[in-house]
């Protein structure tokens, strides 16, 4: 995604009552097991059989040692806030986007939910909550206060 070229929504056109649309994941053969687990409420991370390092987003070839055969394993779903930004403009409703550092190590992009947006701080303990997207599509992992 080349963010630098994204349009900015003029504030005058941003409908204030409508919720932000969360795009539905579109699983492919490589990512389907991750999204199937998400439907069951389980957050998975990638683990390399060779170098044993955890990675995210999961992929079949380890991004660190480039060995094939990385596998999925369940994450604890616990972590801490690494950073965040609360967006007020160009959106139907404010939201908090940021990175959470999982207990297993990887820092992953997410939204912080389940509390006042302004209340989240770097270092706060959080836990995964799966949030629905579109009818029939998998939910996506977000994080709420632990």
């Amino acid at each position, binding site marked *: 995604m080349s963010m630098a070229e994204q349009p900015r929504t003029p504030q005058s056109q941003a409908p204030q009552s409508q919720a932000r649309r*969360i795009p539905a994941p*579109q699983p492919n053969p490589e990512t389907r097991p991750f999204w199937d687990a998400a439907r069951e409420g389980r957050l998975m*991370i990638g683990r390399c059989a060779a170098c044993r390092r955890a990675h995210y987003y999961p992929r079949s070839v380890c991004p660190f040692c480039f060995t094939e055969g990385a596998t999925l394993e369940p994450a604890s779903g616990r972590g801490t806030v690494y950073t*965040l*930004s609360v967006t007020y403009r160009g959106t139907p409703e404010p939201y908090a986007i940021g990175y959470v550092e999982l207990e297993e190590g990887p*820092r992953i992009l997410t939204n912080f939910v389940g509390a006042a947006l302004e209340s989240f701080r770097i270092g706060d303990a959080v836990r995964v909550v799966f949030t629905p997207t579109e009818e029939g599509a998998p939910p996506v992992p977000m994080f709420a206060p632990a």
Partner: protein
Amino acid sequence: MSIKGKAYIVGAYEHPTRHAPDKSTPQLHAECALGALADAGLTRDDIDGYFCAGDAPGFGALSMADYMGLKLRHMDSTETGGSSYIVHVAHAAEAIAAGRCSIALITLAGRPRSEPFRRSAFGAPSPEADFENPYGGQTSNLYGMCATRHMHEFGTTSEQLAWIKVAASTHAQYNPHAMLPEVVTVEDVLASPIISTPLHRLDCCVVSDGGGALIVAAPEIARGLKRPLVRVLGAGEAPKGPRGGELDLTFSAAAWSGPAAFEAAGVTPGDIKYASIYDSFTITVLMQIEDLGFCRKGEGGRFVADGNLISGVGKLPFNTDGGGLCNNHPANRGGITKVIEAVRQLRGEAHPKVQVPNCDLALATGIGGSLGSRHGAGTVILEREG
């Protein structure tokens, strides 16, 4: 193969428009090409290499070469977002040094104020899309997250970031084409609405229609032209991303592109008289200043405060055209205007109020894409000859 001294920037043109509802994007590309050719004293048929990036319509180089009637023996459409055109200067110098072309044209143009965003040819879904798109990443919050972390790690403040905008606006008052020519204060920046924490509206660059073009040529061609000689001394480029979860938002890819450029050029940050530093947001500037070695990591906030970036006042005059923060950010991509103002400074053709005395060594650096996820940095070091 070193590119040092193997290529010169002989033409530079920034389109004066900031709002172009009555033009097409390819038309703007062509107008920018004409402007740069006129600046160089060359004609269309002299061009044998062409460079463009994702703002170019249709099939990119193929569509634009056909539209402009270019006869080419070399083309390159490396896409690193807004920093693409800085990378293109380096790639053009490499192509010239390798004998693949002798006169290269680089164009950028777009109309984000006048038409809806259109995706370029690079259209297949990205592998990270399903893992990132649901969370509403926008340019503002992907840079805001970096500012949040920088403040946490190093104690950087919104007041310090605001000084970057103050410096840009101090320069913009002398640019008749600047979108925002009014000088602002730190208080003005802090009083502007929050777009995405901790960034205020005045921490963000403008959205403008327009474009620019550059012409890079071989030494024997440059010496036959009438313009001051500006040669490419060194360059570096690098991508950076979340790295499988081993993400570190405290530095940018300029930490790699900068040292590579300095080493190739054989100069140090202390030698640089003028710096064009991509200013999509104030935080972008601050992180690049640290990553390029103008100050130590974490000290950028103190470095930019109190007017240190203002020409004639501070130690590191930057973005004397007003930058993306105040002057122009055509097609939501600022890389080409960074090189253009560096060329103006080296030629002694910046506005007299902001011209750096005896400016013989300049740097242009940029971050394209998203600082908070994946981005590409490009750095070039340019020298006036004679």
